[in-house]
């Protein structure tokens, strides 16, 4: 067990492109750290640098107090679960799990048998020990890969998108399994994923990367409530945060479909006459007729034409389209391409109560909780409304 300190790590490929650019990260002993970002953001490269499969261009990689930049993977004593499992097809499940122990060559056959059997019991693989990987299901192969990791006393576990090859139901089960196992063993873990559900549910802390640059390191809750910039705000949350142009005029904030009276905390950070990007989570809206009377005063109500509604049983989304000025549109398009998605049209997504009777084409009265509105600088993308001092880390649970 060990803490991992990543200090100004840079990975530059032969063509000079920095896949990972000046990333610094402290991962505490026993912590579960998630690296997340769209594809090509450098999260896997960073993980492979930790384990030693990629050379480090500059910076320091410190594991358990030792600088490991120039050490071979086998000298770093880390265990890794690969995206495609990388099981040894010519060996049985037992020999797959025993492989690292046999290489170490320190244990007798009886000790190896005991350790492998214990690991297999933890992962409920004991019935399959004599089978070959080819005859196992996807979930079982995944567990064999994890068995190979937990069987030895590794300083840390590294997971490279281990669940991305599983179907949705199994993914949910394995996610809980990984979390349970990590808590039980209390081993420092770095987990790479592009799935934000995994990022939000698994991690003590989450690190978001964009094009090799670290954007924000925070607890999942802080990510959702206090994103540091447009990119993070757009990446975390499903359906994603709505971004709309907001003009400050006459001590009011003018959005395409409503006008909000200036809140005191906005006055210092905005200038009159300028255009900002307002970020609003779909959940910050509600059908005005279904809002409790004591909550109504916290926000504003407004009338809009509803384009389309999507009723999903326990939630309901309504879509409202609007016209945006050109400069905001280009900024939003750039953001969409950063996030690996496509900006189809300027519209907002509103989450309304499933009981709401709002239907396609209706003119509806909606309510917005203005205290949960974020304002972003249209040039830098920085979050202007982010409350300082909220970088408080959630306690690390080891056990």
């Amino acid at each position, binding site marked *: 067990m060990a803490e991992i300190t990543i200090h100004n790590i840079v990975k530059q490929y032969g063509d000079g492109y920095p896949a990972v650019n000046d990333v610094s990260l402290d991962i505490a002993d026993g912590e579960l750290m998630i690296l997340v970002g769209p594809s090509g953001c450098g999260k896997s490269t960073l993980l492979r640098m930790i384990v030693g499969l990629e050379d480090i261009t500059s910076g320091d990689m410190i594991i358990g107090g030792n600088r490991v930049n120039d050490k071979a993977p*086998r000298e770093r004593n*880390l*265990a*890794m679960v*690969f995206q*495609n499992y*990388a099981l*040894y*097809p010519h060996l049985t499940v037992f020999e797959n799990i025993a492989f690292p122990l046999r*290489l170490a060559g320190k244990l007798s056959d009886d000790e190896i048998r005991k350790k492998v059997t214990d690991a297999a019991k933890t992962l409920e693989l004991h019935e399959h020990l004599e089978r070959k990987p080819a005859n196992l299901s996807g979930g079982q192969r995944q567990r064999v890969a994890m068995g190979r990791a937990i069987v030895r006393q590794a300083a840390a576990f590294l997971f490279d998108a281990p669940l991305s090859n599983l179907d949705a139901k199994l993914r949910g089960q394995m996610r809980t399994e990984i979390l349970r196992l990590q808590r039980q063993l209390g081993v420092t873990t770095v987990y790479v994923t592009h799935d934000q559900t995994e990022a939000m549910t698994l991690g003590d802390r989450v690190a978001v990367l964009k094009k090799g640059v670290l954007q924000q390191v925070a607890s999942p809750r802080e990510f959702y409530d206090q994103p540091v910039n447009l990119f993070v705000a757009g990446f975390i949350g499903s359906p994603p945060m709505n971004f709309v142009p907001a003009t400050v005029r006459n001590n009011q904030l003018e959005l395409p479909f409503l006008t909000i009276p200036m809140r005191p905390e906005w006055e210092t950070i905005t200038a009159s006459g300028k255009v900002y990007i307002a970020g609003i989570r779909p959940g910050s809206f509600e059908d005005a007729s279904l809002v409790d009377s004591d909550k109504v005063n916290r926000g504003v109500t407004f009338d809009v034409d509803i384009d389309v509604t999507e009723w999903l049983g326990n939630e309901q989304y309504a879509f409202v389209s609007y016209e945006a000025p050109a400069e905001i549109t280009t900024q939003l398009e750039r953001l969409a391409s950063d996030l690996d998605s496509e900006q189809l049209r300027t519209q907002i997504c509103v989450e309304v109560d499933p009981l709401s009777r709002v239907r396609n084409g209706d003119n509806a009265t909606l309510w917005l909780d203005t205290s949960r509105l974020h304002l972003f600088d249209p040039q830098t993308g920085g979050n202007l409304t982010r409350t300082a001092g909220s970088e408080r880390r959630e306690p690390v649970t080891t056990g």
Partner: protein
Amino acid sequence: MSTAKSGGWWTIAGVVIVIYSFFPLAWMISLAFKPPSDIVSGSPQFLPTTWTFDNFVTIFSDSLFTRALINSIGIALVATVLSVVIAMFAAYAIARLEFRGKKVLLSLALGIAMFPQAALVGPLFGMWRSVGIYDTWIGLIIPYMTFALPLSIWTMSAFFRQIPWEMEHAAQVDGATQWQAFRKVIVPLAAPGVFTTVILTFFFCWNDFLFSISLTSTNSARTVPAALAFFQGASYFESAVPYVMAASVIVTIPVVILVLAFQRRIVAGLTSGAVKG
């Protein structure tokens, strides 16, 4: 309907091809068991009038054949083992490492494999005589390796390339050195490729006639295909054909054994289950 019909045609075509290609083999076997008198008989027939093992007894008592058999086995084995081991390392390097001149090396290897062997026999004859390895095992092993290696390297590097990088990475993270990862993970996974190469190389060395007839002069290194040309019957008045055929049957046996023994290993899909496909 139409598929059943075309399936029937395929079967007929298959049977015709099998009969066509097996007829010489069957004839060879039949001749090998015929008494010499059958060969010159006025009423020739396909099957022997009496089945006899005398031809085999005769050739095994002839030092020309037994010595050639030992040469054949020894030379083919040494050349095969050496070229497969060398090809394995070379192919691994070509499949996994980036180095300057890789393309040149590969095309050069292919060029050597394409080179007409007959064009080399003359110069080799002169060189081997002056170097002093004419009519020796090593004098045959070297040209065999030269021509077997390029093909072996190409075949095996194709097999190595199919093995996912992650297998080695996983082994390294699990604590293996590069050599351990190669020996314990890569080689077992490339086994079908290795066996294929072993068989191809062995056949090439075993069947070669050109080098063997040109680069040997005595029994000390002459292999069976070349030795057959020098075969005579038990006496000058008898045809040598039954003896030659008996010897042919004997040299065919290792080939058949090799194929039967290894065909189960040359199955694709040994790597299935390594990674999620």
